[in-house]
């Protein structure tokens, strides 16, 4: 096989890896939409906030130090300690749970039985608030995130596949971070599926997702379920924030990764966890292969963003509920 063929395979593999990264973001949307019918516009900002909090705790940053210094003329920035990564992750999860409780108490509780569009608007407000709050709490500078996951081309994969395509082929390039992200995503999805199938809380989540009224009538607390589901979405946001933040630093643009999740959701459906995964993989592979085969050689490149949406739109025409979404049949 010529080198060009193997480079095509390389692009396909990298597309799959990129798809996993998109799926990680899409998962958060699916979880909340499934349980509460809310399209959570703030999911991308939650990923940014979670990553900012993790770096802040890990490196011993004093929260709101800029504000404190401006108000009291002090010059404090660091506590002077570093928190081990695992402990920092646990503390960040705690912060995201606290965030979920606050969101439920201050926003969702007051919007029970409101139209989905109102809940959606509330999450837009939440996104902008959290964006500013995160910067105020941890500062707007770009932060390096190091959770011990190695990054860079995997030398073993590269060397062991270099023989495939002759002298012009340098072996497959696979980023070690992406490989880790894939494994983590598999574990995460498996855990979520097991949780929702085999635990009491998981079954309650599914009951609420199926029918709020019926779930309430059998004694399931809607408010508790909302806190749980926002906490899980916060955890998923943390995982996505860590993976993306490790690639490009923790900075504002991390919140824009939500844009990559939209075509995935359109394709996979808003209510299906496997849909988010399969949708992510199709988008990842589709956009990377299109760029490799058509975009870069014939269209001047940078086709990935619009191609992802175009692919999703084509799917929408034939299957509006997405690949795995539930078909909504409304009868009079």
């Amino acid at each position, binding site marked *: 096989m010529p080198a060009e063929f193997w*480079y095509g395979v390389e692009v396909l593999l990298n597309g799959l890896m990129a798809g996993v990264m998109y799926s990680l973001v899409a998962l958060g949307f699916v979880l909340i939409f499934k349980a509460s019918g809310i399209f959570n516009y703030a999911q991308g900002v939650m990923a940014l906030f979670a990553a900012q909090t993790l770096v802040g705790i890990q490196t011993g940053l004093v929260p709101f130090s800029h504000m404190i210094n401006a108000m009291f003329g002090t010059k404090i920035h660091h506590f002077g300690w570093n928190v081990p990564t695992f402990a920092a992750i646990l503390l960040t999860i705690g912060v995201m749970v606290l965030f979920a409780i606050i969101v439920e108490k201050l926003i969702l509780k007051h919007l029970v039985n409101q139209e989905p569009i109102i809940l959606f608007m509330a999450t837009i407000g939440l996104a902008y608030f959290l964006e500013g709050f995160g910067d105020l709490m941890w500062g707007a500078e*770009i932060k390096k995130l190091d959770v011990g996951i190695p990054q860079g081309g995997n030398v073993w994969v590269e060397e062991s596949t270099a023989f495939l395509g002759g002298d012009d082929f340098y072996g497959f390039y696979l980023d070690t971070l992406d490989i880790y992200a894939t494994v983590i995503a598999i574990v995460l999805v498996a855990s979520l599926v097991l949780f929702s199938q085999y635990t009491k809380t998981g079954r309650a989540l599914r009951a609420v997702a199926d029918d709020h009224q019926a779930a309430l009538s059998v004694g399931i607390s809607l408010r508790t379920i909302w806190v749980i589901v926002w906490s899980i979405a916060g955890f998923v946001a943390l995982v996505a924030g860590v993976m993306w933040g490790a690639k490009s630093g923790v900075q504002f643009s991390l919140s824009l990764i939500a844009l990559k999740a939209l075509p995935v959701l359109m394709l996979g459906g808003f209510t299906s966890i496997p849909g988010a995964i399969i949708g992510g993989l199709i988008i990842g592979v589709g956009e990377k292969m299109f760029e490799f085969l058509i*975009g870069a050689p014939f269209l001047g*490149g940078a086709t990935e963003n619009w191609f992802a949406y175009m692919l999703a739109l084509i799917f929408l025409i034939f299957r509006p509920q997405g690949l795995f979404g539930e078909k909504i049949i409304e009868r009079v």
Partner: protein
Amino acid sequence: MKMKTFTAIALAVTMAAPPAFADLVFPSLSYRTGPYAANGIPFADGYEDYFKLINARDGGIGGEMVKVIECETGYNTEKGVECYESTKGEGALVYQPLSTGITYQLIPKSAADGIPLHTMGYGRTSAANGKVFNTVFNYPANYWNGASAVVNHLLEINDGDIKGKTLALVYHNSAYGKEPIRTREELSKKHGFELTLLPVDHPGQEQKSQWLQIRREKPDYVTMWGWGVMNATAIQEAANIRYPMENFIGVWWSGSENDVKPVGDKADGYKALNFHGVGDDYPLYDDLKKYVYDEGNATGAGDQKGTVLYNRGMYAAMLAVEAAKKAQEIHGVSDITPQQMRDGMEALEITEDLMTELGMPGFGPSFKVSCENHGGPGLASVNQWDAKAGQWKQITDYSESDMDVIGALIEEDSAAYAKESNVEEACS
């Protein structure tokens, strides 16, 4: 009847009299929020701190205190125009939009209002032709100088011959990012190198396809025209594919600490252009410490001093102050108008002696502005990141760009603008 007459006279007097301003007003169109905040903050801090120093140490400019009005643009063009409109009535003397998009929108407004723009190292490159762009200045260097300076550096390290070499340009897929393409294409014809264009969509967090292509094609050099997260991501991807960092060169908007620090040690050796000094080893910083920092008056968190973009903001403020002084000298008044400020900018001359006197010896190149040339000499240096020391090192002197190629392009583009906007080329 008497009352009506009195009211009419009062109204006429009020409208005819120029507004009385107590201070020299320098608006700061900053962005401390949004995707580019990490870069907007140090520039805004440096810009304002220099004016604070001028007030505290010198009692203002020519006896007139300086007032900085900060307006948040979020790097958003619409907000930038709003900031301009809301602050110009305060007596604004010069605007630094710090965004090419905002600059393009402000160019016609600036011409109509007579308020100068200073777009240092960005904006519309052909504004260097002052005969067409009477109120726009882009000294000491512009985009096309940058595009050429990189090629000149490659010529220098290849004994003057880059024929047959391959050069990739990774650029932000926007009006800003596309600026160097025409110049590079012309230079490619002139020097015989092969140019590959690799656009990256906003915000630039994802560049896997571009870097897989670079890995496949192995260009001799990769150059970058990025901003914000795109820069750090590109440097990280270059490190991931083990591309030699010393062969990777960014423009001056891809060469701040924010671009290399997130990558860590692997960013070591990455190069970027600059048109001013780096670090805080200048006597000026002693004055800043004494009159600004130690007084608790540092702008923002006060943690940006010596960074590339802080220095750039400070340099922009210094050039504004010197132009204001020149305007006062030309017109013999201390309370200058925006039009007089424009005259000062057009007559600005920066010499080595002046830089030394200002406590910034060697910080920037010497240059003289004229009506024909609002862009200055287009000198640029090359910096290299030393990851171990955690600082940029200036590795070349300020050197000239290819004005034969750039001058012709400036003439062509400014003539096209003059035609479409019905501007008559002239020196006032």
